[in-house]
């Protein structure tokens, strides 16, 4: 009995250790090496050189800071778009129509990242829908350069990550007790006072959870900046990817950068999440 119980628990523990933790530990181990995969006669040397390279290279640092900025921007934009939208469904829609509306909003997000990137190219390219309409209406003669710049990068990132913000914010808004809003209205609070004294504080945790998640997802996007970004918007994920893409890859450097991205991403996400918890009054 005790043996079967131990075996029953061993499976998941092995899975978590071997599938979820081990890749990250192996990445951390490689990040300390000078070369990997090493030539047969090479004796591996351990050092922190790869981390020093990150701190001393302006190019790498710039890509890293750009990644943090774009992820922050995408998080903010996603929140500004998702909150009113979630509010429109969770608070302002009758309960029986709520699920149907939510479903219709979720549906576009079943498509993959690449499909949505393709859609944005069709929207913004020189022969795309926006330029087509502008030229047809005679507003512009030559097509506007809407693609391959910071604008299309931010646009694409938001379109890819929006759902991860919408769902937690929606869940928080739906849990909000309606009686509180009615009580506030009964006490003479106007729409704005109700929103910033009742609705906003009580959904703070959902906002923080969604923001933390969206920040992490944005930080990890690779296809979006590769395709929709321009020459001057190289993100850290592309820097990391390039260390593994070619045959003359530099795995240890890429592994170190990966660990830097993971640690800073988790750190910032944890700060966002705890900011939401601290100030939230218990309902």
């Amino acid at each position, binding site marked *: 009995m005790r043996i*079967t119980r131990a075996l*029953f*628990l061993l*499976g*998941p*523990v092995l*899975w978590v250790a071997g*599938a*979820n*933790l*081990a*890749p*990250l530990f*192996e*990445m951390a181990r*490689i990040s300390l090496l000078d070369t990997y*995969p090493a030539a047969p006669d090479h004796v591996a040397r351990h050092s922190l050189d790869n981390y020093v390279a990150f701190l001393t290279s302006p190019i790498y640092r710039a890509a890293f800071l750009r990644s943090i900025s774009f992820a922050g921007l995408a998080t903010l934009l996603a929140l500004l*778009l998702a909150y*009113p939208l979630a509010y*429109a*469904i969770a608070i*302002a829609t009758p309960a029986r129509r709520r699920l149907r509306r939510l479903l219709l*909003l*979720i*549906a*576009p997000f*079943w*498509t*993959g*990242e*690449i*499909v*949505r*990137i*393709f*859609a944005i190219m*069709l*929207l913004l390219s*020189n*022969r*795309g829908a926006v330029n*087509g309409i502008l030229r047809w209406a005679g507003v512009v003669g030559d097509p506007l350069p809407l693609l391959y710049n910071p604008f299309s990068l931010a646009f694409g990132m938001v*379109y890819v990550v*929006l759902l991860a913000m919408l769902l937690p914010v929606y869940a928080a808004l739906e849990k909000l007790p309606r009686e509180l809003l009615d009580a506030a209205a009964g006490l003479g609070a106007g729409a704005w006072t109700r929103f910033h004294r009742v609705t906003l504080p009580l959904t703070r945790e959902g906002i923080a959870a969604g923001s933390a*998640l969206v920040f*992490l*997802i944005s*930080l*990890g*996007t*690779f*296809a979006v900046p590769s*395709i929709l970004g321009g020459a001057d918007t190289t993100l850290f*994920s592309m820097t*990391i990817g390039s*260390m*593994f893409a070619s045959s003359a890859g530099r795995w240890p450097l890429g592994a170190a950068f*990966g660990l830097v991205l993971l640690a800073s*991403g988790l750190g910032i*996400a944890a700060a966002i999440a705890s900011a939401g918890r601290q100030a939230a009054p218990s309902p």
Partner: protein
Amino acid sequence: MSRRLPGLVYRGAVLCLFLPLALIALTSLNRQPVVGFPISGLTLEWYAAVLADREIVRAFLLSCAAALASTALALLAGLWTSLAVASLASPLLRAALLCGACLPMVTPGIVSAISLRIYIRLLGIDPGLGAIVLGHAIHSAPYVVIVVGARLRLMPANLAEAARSLGAGDVRIFRRVTLPWLRPALGAAAVLALLESFDDFLRSFFLGGYRPTLPVLIYGRLFAGLSPEIGAATTLVLALTMAVGLSAEWLFRRARAPKDS
């Protein structure tokens, strides 16, 4: 605030989210060989070209194989993990196992992809279908843990007790009571995992060998410039994922309703 404003916000959002996707379908029917506007005439010839393109068909089949195999593995790992989590008495151990099991959800995509690329080398697995299946399963298992775990918490404790008092052993209780109770959740989790795998680009890109999955193939061709054939292929993918997603939603709702089986 106007009463009609929420409805307008909602309708505007649906339009904005669907419009770019509709552009793909629209331009895939355009007769002219250059992707974009204006639409000069309608044709289905790009769809015929997709079906005749051996590379696209092979990539599609590879994506399907990866999706099916990784979903099976993710279901097994996820189901087993959620049962183990539920069986732990200590809240601390339960939280620890759950956090470990959900770690891939908060790992940024690029870090997940390259750490797996490094890891399969340690395991001696060459890039290719096997590596993709493992990578996708690792990515999808947390979704299974969350969906199945939610349903497991809704299971009335007296169901298993009743079976035990009637003389059923652990294995029998699992097969005749727990598993049927979890079936809708397993179905919903399976569809989620299928979609996650089929749509995945990042892991497939770094873990793939010589033959690309469909998203990796489309990615490569997007770099070469927009072609109407890729538009048609993407439209087919879009239709397929929408159909699969709708069935997921239907199953999900059955899984959430506490009394339905």
